[in-house]
């Protein structure tokens, strides 16, 4: 049995396919990331898996239970941290967890013990009796993660866990998610931050316009586009490209730089120098491909983290304000 099985999942809103025939299998114990720009269908997918939305067609099983027919069992199996804040800020940290424990039918002693454990895990034990109102954005996020884990779910959904947080706090949240791996919790996270998926995930599904465009571990994905990226600045780019192309290199110009895909850059660079004796090379560098290069490779377009419309930008601002 897989932790999550999705088959041909489709969700339409007013005839527009937000999720377009996605199929995925996620193993127990895995940290799996859905990576894609805003509006790619990540949150819709998670909402269906969490039984908050019904799929238009297709099937999904979570912890072996059908998300439509066995919704109650699915809900018992999962914990979820929503994209938008969902704590009651007039309650203390402990009260938020206490209510959560009750909603998940935990016994009194069990609740007491577990509240201690999860608060310790996210290093908030000192603030157990403070009102959530007084918490910073990062602390709230940590408390939400603790709450998601309160009832010992086998599977945890994290929808954009570090959205709107500063880089330092983001690192901090990453540490907690890493800890979950050691505890054997299956994590399905959505993110539009490349480095987040790269850093955390065992496997990544890159999603664009409701479809899975690439699937694999971060290194598999990077390898799949064929080795390294070499960037050259020189005085005559066109001549350089012509020269390289006629010698079997895969070269193109992007932003006044010559970009070359090469299987083993360190072996190809001397060859380039040999070929391009006539051209003055100002600088040359090579790097392993990033997930960004992977995204460009599979979708044929640049990945813009800030690629959102005005309405979304306002929503984001509002979200940040509340954190």
């Amino acid at each position: 049995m897989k932790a999550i099985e999705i088959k041909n999942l489709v969700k339409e809103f007013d005839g527009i396919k937000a999720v377009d025939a996605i199929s995925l299998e996620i193993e127990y114990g895995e940290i799996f990331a859905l990576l894609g720009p805003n509006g790619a269908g990540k949150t819709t997918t998670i909402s269906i898996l969490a039984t908050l939305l019904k799929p238009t067609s297709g099937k999904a099983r979570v912890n072996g239970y059908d998300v439509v027919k066995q919704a109650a069992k699915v809900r018992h199996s999962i914990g979820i941290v929503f994209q938008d804040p969902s704590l009651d800020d007039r309650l203390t940290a402990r009260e938020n967890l206490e209510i959560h424990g009750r909603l998940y039918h935990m016994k009194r002693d069990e609740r007491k013990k577990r509240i201690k454990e999860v608060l310790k895990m996210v290093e908030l034990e000192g603030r157990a009796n403070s009102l959530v109102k007084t918490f910073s954005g990062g602390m709230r996020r940590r408390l939400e993660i603790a709450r998601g884990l309160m009832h010992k779910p086998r599977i945890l959904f994290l929808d954009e866990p570090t959205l709107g947080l500063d880089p330092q706090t983001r690192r901090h949240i990453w540490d907690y998610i890493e800890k979950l791996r050691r505890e054997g919790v299956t994590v399905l996270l959505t993110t539009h931050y490349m480095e987040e998926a790269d850093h955390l995930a065992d496997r990544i599904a890159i999603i664009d316009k409701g479809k899975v465009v690439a699937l694999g571990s971060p290194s598999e994905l990077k390898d799949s586009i064929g080795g390294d990226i070499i960037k050259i600045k020189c005085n005559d780019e066109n001549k350089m490209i012509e020269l390289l192309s006629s010698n079997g290199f895969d070269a193109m110009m992007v932003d006044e730089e010559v970009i070359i895909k090469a299987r083993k850059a360190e072996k190809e660079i001397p060859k380039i120098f040999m070929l391009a004796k006539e051209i003055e090379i100002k600088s040359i560098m090579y790097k392993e491909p990033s997930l960004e290069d992977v995204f460009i490779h599979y979708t044929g377009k640049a990945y813009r983290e800030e690629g959102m419309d005005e309405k979304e930008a306002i929503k984001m601002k509002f979200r940040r304000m509340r954190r």
Partner: protein
Amino acid sequence: MINDIYAVYLRELIRLWRQKVRLVTTIMMPLLWLGVIGSAFNKAFQMPFGGDFLSFLTPGILVMTMVFTSTVSGITTVFDREFGFLKEMLVAPIKRESILIGKMLGGVTQSMLQGVLIVSLAILMGVQFKGIAAIPGMILTMLLVSIAFVSFGLALASKMTSMEGFQMVMSFLIQPMIFLSGAFYPTKMLPTWLKVGVRLNPLTYGVDAMRYFAIGFHEFNVAMDLIILTALSVVLILIGGHLFRKS
């Protein structure tokens, strides 16, 4: 199911406790009505049943305050939707009905506390209630009014997405209902065309029943008052429940 309802209700109780200052601040308006208007007109008005105006006014103010408090408590669901806690409850393995009932109980509790506070103040001001005998009937009427208008608030909250909408409903529906309910004067004194509004207004019967149980004066059949109030509660619960489930 009971435990699930309690979990939802417990949160409402904690929130209520945290906002206990608000219970006192929202008492200001009824206090002014009773203390200023009530006292000022006490001598000026000859009441048809022979009693004083303050005693006549008190049940009306009681119903008015509870209607406001109950309806506003429906706002908490809009807040929950805006601030996300509703989602936390919606993904929990509990029934939608448990959330609804837990929230309703929270609103009813708040409204009842408010009612008890006003009655206590009225006693301090010298209002003559019917004594111990008044208690069961008043509590029954208070409960029916609270349940009806908490449900009404929930129904509104399910349909509305902003606080501005609430202001509209308060000004254009609730306030006219209160002014046409006979809360401040005997409805006999109104011109005929306004009496139609009075008879169509369900609140009229809430005020009438409350006044009967509190001080013994009534304009309509009290059994009919209670039947109308009960019917109103049931209908509003069903509508509120339906809209809440759908949203």
